[in-house]
């Protein structure tokens, strides 16, 4: 292996970074413990405080300590407010709540831009109360870093004491063990929960203020995927319950990160080692979570599919089938009417819809939460970049799909042992690893056999690929490519619907709903889970090829892991598990903002606030909305028909007895022929 050298200053640097991860991890654990919510907004709450601190000291010339108290108070209030908004979601499926916190994080980012929070000079550094610095080796540690070294441990110890000895701490611990029992024993769980979010908000403020001095711009999004990954890993090492372990693990992750930076020159190898270490640590620590009495909660990560009953109403079926045909035909005509830019957008929406469908299989049906779906899309895109010019398109789509399916199965292997939350972390790690290591390294030498293998983008900064032709037809014009993307989308919808109706999906859902029961029934559980990853990966893979050809020019930045968050939002907005919903979700999040970017209503609807509103008031998503409208339409059509039959009665048609029993009484007199008239 590699010989690690660990000079003092590297270790201290690691501890300083790690203290930040630790505090963030503690905030995540605190909220997860209390409400079983994975709070993506945990970092962003603090950013408001950091920005406000700059505003108060620089613009209003407040005394530092007074300003500090005010800004931490602001973060605490924002934390409490978030809890009040999200409270009604706490007993909903975990994925839903998680996406709501993604929305919250966007709202908070928008809040920092408000005039009374945002400082005049955005690039003003966050102030430090003293001018103390020291030198270790060749590195000078700035006053900000000294502040972190002093304050972070104090904050952590204070929190530990509060959890141990205040009544809030006691109530919080009781609530995390068993909320129902705690409630029956007189714990006011709502107040406890609000208090927890308040504390977490203040904690987040410390995290951001202590981390901020090094940053050039105060307005950056603080919860970058890397930071989230490190904090989540630390939190999981603490089994999402132990605050001390999570804090120490955070420091450990920081030290590890700095050590790798110091010892390994290539970013790709740093990422590789980090990825492997994280995976091993998680696999070892999973026993701790398993032993935990709350292991039953893993199942709550897996529920939340749209609860739409298959309908036996013939009229209703006809209406939805004709609706689908109308939508498909409309979409097929649309490229003729659109200009070049909008046709490009049309292709993008279609391809994103396919990616959303791939996640519908994995998350909607199999109940596995993936935060790294875009990493799989990147695999497909790389295949297109390397083979696009030489391999015929249909073959390339199949081949890329197969390779990505294989990658997805490998990424999914830990999921056979790990509960939902762990999979979210490993997939996130995979997506980051894909972007920062694999894509950024055009070719690498396989150790041992000294052969080069090209798995990255040919040119990580800017790869240019030409569109191929399909069966002799060029796809170079945006219009042709829009049709091609639509074709791919329609085929994907057809495949997914076939899987749902003809038996592939039912065992995925059975394993999700009741793993033990499925095993006792004789369903091969492991194979079924891997099948979900395989199918999902296949779809993401060929979508990746399409995305590469649609974009034509891309870099590693094209495959930002945060896009995976947008995709999971699409699936949730559409309604988990709903096929039509996934398409609508893509249209809503990818299509609307680009089309009506300047329109404030659309901006609101597609913003974080819109996302939260959606989840609060329409938990079944756009899919449910569609379903309800079809129901309403059916009722309307039926009403018109019944009026018609009372005025001019129709004889009972010969085939009426064999038609399925309709859900609405009295509908048996209706025939399909009537519908068409």
């Amino acid at each position, binding site marked *: 292996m590699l010989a690690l050298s660990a000079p003092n200053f590297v270790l201290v640097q690691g501890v300083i970074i790690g203290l930040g991860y630790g505090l963030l991890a503690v905030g995540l654990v605190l909220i997860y413990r209390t409400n079983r919510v994975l709070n993506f907004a945990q970092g962003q709450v603090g950013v408001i405080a950091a920005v406000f601190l700059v505003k108060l000291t620089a613009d209003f010339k407040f005394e530092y300590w007074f300003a500090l108290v005010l800004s931490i108070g602001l973060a605490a209030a924002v934390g409490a407010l978030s809890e009040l908004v999200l409270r009604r979601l706490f007993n909903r499926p975990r994925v839903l709540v998680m996406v709501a916190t993604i929305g919250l994080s966007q709202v908070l980012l928008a809040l920092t831009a408000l005039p009374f929070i945002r400082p005049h000079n955005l690039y003003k550094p966050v102030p430090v109360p003293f001018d103390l610095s020291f030198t270790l080796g060749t590195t000078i540690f700035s006053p900000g870093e000294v502040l972190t070294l002093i304050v972070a441990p104090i904050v952590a110890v204070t929190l530990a004491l509060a959890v141990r000895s205040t009544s809030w701490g006691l109530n919080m611990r009781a609530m995390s063990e068993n909320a129902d029992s705690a409630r029956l024993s007189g714990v006011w769980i709502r107040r406890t929960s609000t208090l927890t979010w308040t504390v977490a908000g203040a904690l987040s403020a410390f995290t951001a203020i202590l981390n901020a001095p090094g940053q050039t711009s105060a307005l950056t999004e603080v919860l970058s995927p890397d930071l989230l990954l490190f904090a989540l890993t630390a939190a999981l090492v603490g089994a999402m319950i132990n605050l001390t372990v999570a804090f120490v693990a955070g420091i450990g992750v920081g030290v590890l990160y700095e050590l790798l930076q110091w010892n390994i020159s290539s970013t790709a190898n740093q990422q590789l080692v980090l990825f492997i270490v994280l995976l091993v640590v998680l696999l070892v620590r999973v026993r701790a979570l398993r032993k935990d009495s709350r292991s039953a909660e893993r199942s709550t990560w897996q*529920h939340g*599919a749209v*609860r739409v*009953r*298959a*309908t*036996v109403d013939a009229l209703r079926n006809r209406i939805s089938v004709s609706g689908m045909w109308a939508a498909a035909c409309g979409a097929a005509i649309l490229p003729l009417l659109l200009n070049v830019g909008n046709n490009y957008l049309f292709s993008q929406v279609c391809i994103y819809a396919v990616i959303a469908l791939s996640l519908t299989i994995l998350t909607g049906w199999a109940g596995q939460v993936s935060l790294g779906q875009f990493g799989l899309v990147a695999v497909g895109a790389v295949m297109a970049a390397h083979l696009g010019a030489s391999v015929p398109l249909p073959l390339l789509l199949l081949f890329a799909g197969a390779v990505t399916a294989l990658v997805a199965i490998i990424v999914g292997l830990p999921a056979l042992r790990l509960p939902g939350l762990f999979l979210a972390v490993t997939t996130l790690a995979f997506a980051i690893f894909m972007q920062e290591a694999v894509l950024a390294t055009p070719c690498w030498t396989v150790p041992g056999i000294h052969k080069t293998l090209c798995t990255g983008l040919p040119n990580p900064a800017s790869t240019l690929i030409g569109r191929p032709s399909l069966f002799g037809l060029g796809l170079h014009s945006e219009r042709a490519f829009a049709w091609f993307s639509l074709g791919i989308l329609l085929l994907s919808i057809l*495949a997914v619907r*076939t*899987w749902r109706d*003809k*038996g*592939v999906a*039912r*065992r995925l*859902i*059975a394993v*999700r*709903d*009741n793993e*033990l*029961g*499925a*095993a*006792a*029934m*004789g*369903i*091969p*559980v492991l194979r079924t889970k891997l*099948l979900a990853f395989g*199918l999902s990966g296949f779809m993401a893979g060929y979508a990746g090829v399409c995305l590469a050809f649609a974009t034509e020019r891309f870099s590693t930045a094209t495959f930002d892991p945060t896009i995976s968050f947008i995709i999971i939002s699409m699936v949730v907005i559409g309604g988990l598990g709903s096929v039509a919903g996934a398409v609508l979700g893509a249209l809503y999040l990818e299509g609307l903002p680009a089309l009506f970017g300047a329109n404030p209503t659309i901006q609101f609807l597609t913003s974080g606030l819109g996302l939260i509103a959606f989840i609060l008031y329409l938990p079944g998503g756009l899919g449910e909305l569609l379903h309800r409208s079809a129901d309403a339409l059916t009722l309307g059509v039926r009403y018109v028909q019944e009026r018609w039959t009372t005025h001019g009665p129709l004889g009972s048609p010969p085939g009426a007895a064999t038609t399925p029993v309709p859900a609405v009484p009295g509908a048996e007199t209706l025939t399909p022929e009537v519908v068409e008239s």
Partner: protein
Amino acid sequence: MSGPGSRSGPARLTVENLGVTFGGVRAVDNVSFTAEPGAIVGLIGANGSGKTTTLDMVSGLVAPRQGTVRLDGTDLVDYLPEERERIGIVRSFQDCRLFPELSVLDILMLCEDVKREVAVVSTTLQLPWARRAESRKRAAVDEVIGAFGLERFRHHRTAELSTGTRRVVDLASIILAAPRLLLLDEPTAGIAQREAEAFIPLLRRLHEVADTTIVLVEHDVPLVFELCSSVVVMELGRVVADGPPDVVRADPRALAAYLGASDEAIFASGPTAAGPKGVSATGPDVDGE
């Protein structure tokens, strides 16, 4: 394929000296009994006497610490739960949770899938043989749906069904699984007394149609004495009495262990045992629901 899976018809279950401990507590201690092919064996005993754990060991969910489980003489020690299912050991669960988000049709189709797996590629392309396989399964399922009167619930999600209906779905899926040894864990749990009585003819018909050996864990003592050809009484993980219902009913140790806790249990089992024909006479019109 060799071994017990190649045979058909009801199987003989032999349990010898079975034992397991959970954290120092002997949950099951030296339990032995035999279920002859085609027999219905009832396991009764107070809560915590190890009945369900015994079933867990037979179905492979719990690994025994000592003793053997044999099906037609084959030791099952190396069989995983899903492998045991494949050689004909089928189990229904106490909570009958089934799969909340799946419809009745889906669940019954799943039972057929176990016998013949859905081929992903040919299904995606809707190749003729995949369609044929699906429609064959559909035909078998339709038959069972008709036989159990589930037509009305065909597209209902399991979560929407009442406990009683869920039990019927569970029994219907058992028929499709074609068991050689059927393990029933409290089939009447959570069901009203009246409905529980309706279960006797239903279980009897299941026994006939499925042509299987049944091991039944049950709290409803009258039902057990009515239905079973052999009764095993357990107390604190041990077998205290074993034999035909008449013998067990007279066994003083069995009385002391379970029945004797109060005379009510015996009296409750009295009238039904006296008039089994009377009960089955009321059966058909009740199970017709």
